[in-house]
């Protein structure tokens, strides 16, 4: 489903990733942990097609993204992936529901259908009545939930999250993670969460630990 094969990335003289290989099966739920500088964000960016590795390849849903142009990777991201980042970064001028609708509209769906589906997701996440508010008028937790909704509204095969609850208190963080895990599990979406928080990692089935640009260990939950 999503695979990095012998990927190496350097920023100038710094080696961020060193011959890293990782394979995510469809429907897998993976936590990527490591200290700052361990390379976990770089690995995430490679998997998302944001940066091209200096060596190695990244395969998304059978397609080798390392050969695609920037525009094609962008399109692939739109079609197959959803992303949630630490600060959500919703467009502040748009309402929450307009933010959530965006991926569907970009994919060419009709506005009415997009709005309906977006409202459905906002409902699942418990913020249905905030659809017409702007980010400035809602709390951080609510905005982050909208970001999660945006990541899932177009039914992507893969959801990538980078410290999605980093800016939230524990209760809100727990709620957002629960929503993320539940929604991806029920739809069979692969979920990869980059985090340094043990509690966050414990929400997911598999734990991959990184250190100094390489994968240190992979721990699968055998009961699953």
């Amino acid at each position, binding site marked *: 489903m999503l695979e990095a094969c012998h990927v190496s990335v350097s920023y100038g003289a710094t080696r961020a990733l060193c011959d890293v290989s990782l394979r995510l099966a469809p429907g897998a739920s993976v936590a990527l942990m490591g200290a700052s500088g361990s390379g976990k964000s770089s690995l995430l960016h490679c998997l998302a097609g944001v940066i091209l590795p200096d060596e190695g390849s990244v395969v998304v849903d059978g397609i080798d993204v390392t050969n695609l142009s920037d525009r094609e990777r*962008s399109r692939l991201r739109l079609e197959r992936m959803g992303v949630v980042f630490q600060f*959500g*970064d919703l467009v502040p*001028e748009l309402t929450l529901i307009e933010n959530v609708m965006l*991926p569907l509209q970009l994919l060419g769906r009709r506005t009415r259908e997009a709005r309906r589906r977006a409202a459905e997701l906002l409902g699942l996440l418990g913020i249905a009545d905030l659809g017409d508010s*702007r980010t*400035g008028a809602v709390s951080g937790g609510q905005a982050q939930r909208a970001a999660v909704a*945006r990541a899932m509204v177009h039914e992507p095969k893969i959801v990538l999250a980078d410290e999605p609850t980093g800016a939230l208190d524990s209760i809100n963080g727990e709620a957002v993670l629960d929503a993320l895990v539940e929604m991806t599990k029920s739809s069979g979406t692969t979920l990869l969460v980059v985090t340094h928080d043990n509690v966050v990692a414990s929400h997911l089935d598999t734990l991959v630990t990184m250190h100094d640009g390489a994968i240190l260990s992979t721990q699968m939950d055998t009961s699953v």
Partner: protein
Amino acid sequence: MRAAILLGLRLAVGTGGQRTRSVMMVTASAVGSMVLLLVWGIAHSQVGTTTAFPSNPGAVTLLVAGTIGMVALPVLVFVATIARLSARVRDRRLSNLRLLGLSAAQTRWVAAAEVGFASLVGVVAGAVAFLAAAPLVSRIDVPGRDWTSSSLTPPTSAWICVLAVLPAITVLTAALPQRLSSDRALPHVRHGDIRSVQLVRLVPLVLGFALCWATRGPLLDRKDTLPPGEVLAILAGIALLAIGMLLVIPVFVALVATLVLRLGRGPLATLIGRRLQTQPAGATRVIAALMIGLFIVVGARGVLVAFLATNQYINAADFVERAQTAEVTASPSEANATASVLRSLEGVQRVTSFPVLYGEPVESSAPEENMVTVLVASCTDLGGEDGQLAGCSDQAASLVGDPWIFDSDVEAMRVHEGNEYEPRGAAVVMAMDGATTIDTAEFERAVGALADTPVIVIPPDTEGVAGLLPRTDRLVVAHAGPGRFLYDRVQDAGLRINSSVDLENYDFVQGMLTLVRTLAAVIISIGLLTFTIAGIDRALTRRRELTTLRLIGTPGRLLRAAQWWEAALPTVFGSLLAIAAGGYAGATYLQLDDDKFMPLTTAFALAVVATVTSMLLAWITTVGTTARLNPEHIRAE
């Protein structure tokens, strides 16, 4: 207070972004002060010291003040815009300071210090740059202008204005508009709220339009006879138009936003509509300088047209630019000698000499009032080197232009010697049938005299005319190429000149022309610069959201299109409005009908150019929008 100032100074050079802004502030202040000093100096030396209007020195002062004001306004707007760059980010930071416990006054000091120091440095730098550049500018050779004798030193008031007022205004702009109460600081920390636009903003524009419309009068040169109350009303109307057009922009933007959101489908419409809806006044800030520039440039034509249309100027311009002519009247015995003296003068290209008679219609009851000058010449004489003069007839009389005397059919003229006050001597009657018409301009070019007088030309072999000739005066005209030397040389040769040319008026108007053209270039440039800088800055402060949008897969061209529409819509509207308002103001000032002031084709052409340029400018602001997706930006700030 001291701590607050120090904090402000520290903030001015803190991070890379802040340093860049401070550098831009210094540059903007330097450019602004230099431009102001230069224009003030030019205006003062070229126009302010003119002797063309000895009876009305107040008007000249007003004129100079007006031109300074015309440049000062966009310069101030430009500098103020730079001071408010990245307003969102800096307001947020100041609000955070409030949350930390600083009082409102202290926060204002911080903001003032952050911007004020850079502004002061910039203004001083600009003044120094001006002092260095002034001697260079005065050496620029503009044809027809004599710069070298004038030094471009602006008066003391200019220095005070630039060194004190300019930084003061920047500081005020930076320090004032914040919502600095702590209870409002919290919601201000998050962004993206809509400001509602009040319709009361339409009032000044409507008022200004009404005032201008009410004070319009018939086409008369009434400037020195207008009652001061009416002058004030006109000026107030013009000022209200200028202010009003700026205030109206957010209303328009809000309206368009609502329309786009209601009618549009798809993410592009949503993005554009919502962005326009949020902070509609921000659009004004970006294009204000440009709009003022257009308003002034279009309106200032009014000032110029008044002067360019006077006969004195037209004649003087023709004299200096096309051909100099000097008229000398000589008695029949002196005519040849006079002509050869004139011919011998350096620069004189040819000398024409024609006998001059007078005539009036035979049926006229009041001969003194209906007198025309009669020139006796053959068509080849008139034509000179060019052969025959077009429209001239050797068989009958030729009318020059359309003298009013002939409005009712005149069958015959009585021609005699003498002057216009005393017909004397024998008279010859000649029939007027078959009279042809000579074009006025061609006649003046050929003869170089008798402008603004009703003239007819009769062939020398007209019956009876030969007898009148021996005693009548000759009109001797020296023709030279363009220049200003002729009168001096003729007078130095001891001859008395009958004609006159108002060179001082000419110089004054030329000075005005130069000034206005400089102004136009300067003002529009400042407007464009303000627009571009503010536009790019706005794109940069959006980088985080743009990065996220790219991350979720939004195609770059959609983001570019959104940015373009968001920039283009207010700019096109604003520039068209500015041109219309400026045109209306200028026409009002001149008390002219609109289509005399600016014919429809010119207005249309101007509108098209403005629209195309606005679209181009909007495109420039999309430059920052779609750089490669950079992972550094994903975790920025």
